[in-house]
């Protein structure tokens, strides 16, 4: 089972930082994802140092926000990547294995 089976993502950017909202599809999935998808696991999944990712839980809307610092290398205005905003990058999170 992977995260894609129980959750959705929405990706945004702010300067150099990628902001991924992870939205489990029901309350049970929210509990499960909260326990399994830590900031450290997200950092590993994106090949980042452990301190580069911060997680904020949003229980009232059963969702969470991951703040990935510095991954966009100049952001939309300074990066030459095709997708300078990193809008496509959030979907990589959904391939994370869930036990």
């Amino acid at each position, binding site marked *: 089972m992977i995260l894609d089976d129980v959750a959705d993502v929405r990706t945004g950017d*702010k*300067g150099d930082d990628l902001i991924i909202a992870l939205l489990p*599809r029901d309350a049970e999935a929210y509990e499960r994802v909260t326990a399994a998808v830590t900031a450290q696991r997200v950092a590993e999944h994106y*090949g980042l140092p452990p301190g580069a990712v911060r997680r904020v839980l949003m229980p009232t*809307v059963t*969702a969470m926000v991951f703040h990935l610092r510095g991954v966009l290398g100049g952001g939309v205005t300074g990066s030459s*990547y095709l997708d300078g905003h990193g809008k496509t990058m959030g979907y*990589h999170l959904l391939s994370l294995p869930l036990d």
Partner: protein
Amino acid sequence: MGVKMKQIRVGAGAGFAGDRIDPAVELAQYGDLDYLIFECLGERTVAAGQVRRREDPRAGYDPLLVARIGAVIEHTLATGTTIVTNGGSANPLAAADAVAEMLRERGLDRPVRIAAVTGDDVADTIRAIDPLVWETQEPVSAHGTDLLSANAYIGADSLVAALEQDPDIVIAGRAADPSLYLAPMIHEFGWSSTDVELLGKGTCVGHLLECAGQLTGGYFFDPGPKDVPGLARLGFPFADVSADGSAVVGKLERSGGLLDVRTCREQLLYEVHDPHGYITPDVTADFSRVEFTTVGPERVRVTGASGTQRPTDLKVSLGFQGGWTGEGQMSYAGPRAEERARLAGDVVVERMHTVHGVPSDSLTVELIGTGSAFRGAPGARGSEDITIPEIRLRVSGVLGTRAQAEAVRWEVESLYTNGPAGGGGARGTVTEVVAIRAASLSREAVETTVHTREVQP
């Protein structure tokens, strides 16, 4: 029995500079709106506008602004809907001139009042004060390239001053996105600038609406997990806001798209890195206890937003000369497509170094179709056993000179006859880059002015 609490309806007419126009027309015609908001600026847009304005003093505002207003004006005048926009971008006065000109040509049956808001352009002040750049912690003057633009994020207070002139259209420059929505609420309900609870609630509504179609199924639709009907006719959202800050967001049932609790929770968290402290010029909003409740078809109630004191200083968006982006692309298909594309990329990078003197670490090579969007994250490629039928090679770099950027495009194109077998469909572009940075400026150093004019029939 109490008197019915005052309520206004605020509609989203655009969520970015390149947004569609027809959903705004539909909302203006059938939405029974009090206010229609066109949010047209991104981090790059104002700086790009300043560059255009330097070449032509009559330019620098959003190129689509006149078309947007022209498309809805018949309906907004008929219903008494006030238009509020930041599409004045780098030149709100020229934008007001252009809109006035369009209105005169249209021939109106009543006078139209346009209020333009200036004062967000703080380039002279920034040069004089020379504050620290957030990203480098060095003064603006120590930046290696020229400062092209400096625009302060102005808040709802500047827009409220314009609304007090009873305009049909308010045209501002770098007004913060949620402030465009908050200003009508402050104006209509007389909210105090220190009532952080109400300002937080209004800012939450503004944040939900500011990306327009992203609340109604756009950027959400994902076949299977998140289906949305009528995406090609996606309607834009509106909010019914009451004087106590309570709000219901909705969309027209006649339009395509979807507005429900799921679309609302996604948009609530969009581009919000700290839901406890969403900073605007008006308030530090707190979204951490927001809840959504379905109250009808395509209607969702928003509760629980609050706020704390606004920041002392204003954020200023700085645009610096940032060199040139050069890019070239080429396709490879069939057996060994990936190997040939990779080889082609290696050839370009080597020649950029040996022939054009561009170091290889300033170039980016993407093999589009192999998971390159994930920028080398572990496992981005998926299984190595996957056979990929076609690959798009893309080589790019942000470089010091236009000639170097041209060389990237040229070296990829020259692969046609000099590169690996079967390369096709070469394309390339060269564009000037404005690098965006930020700084702080005290509120006292930013003085905004309202310029009101009336276009006679």
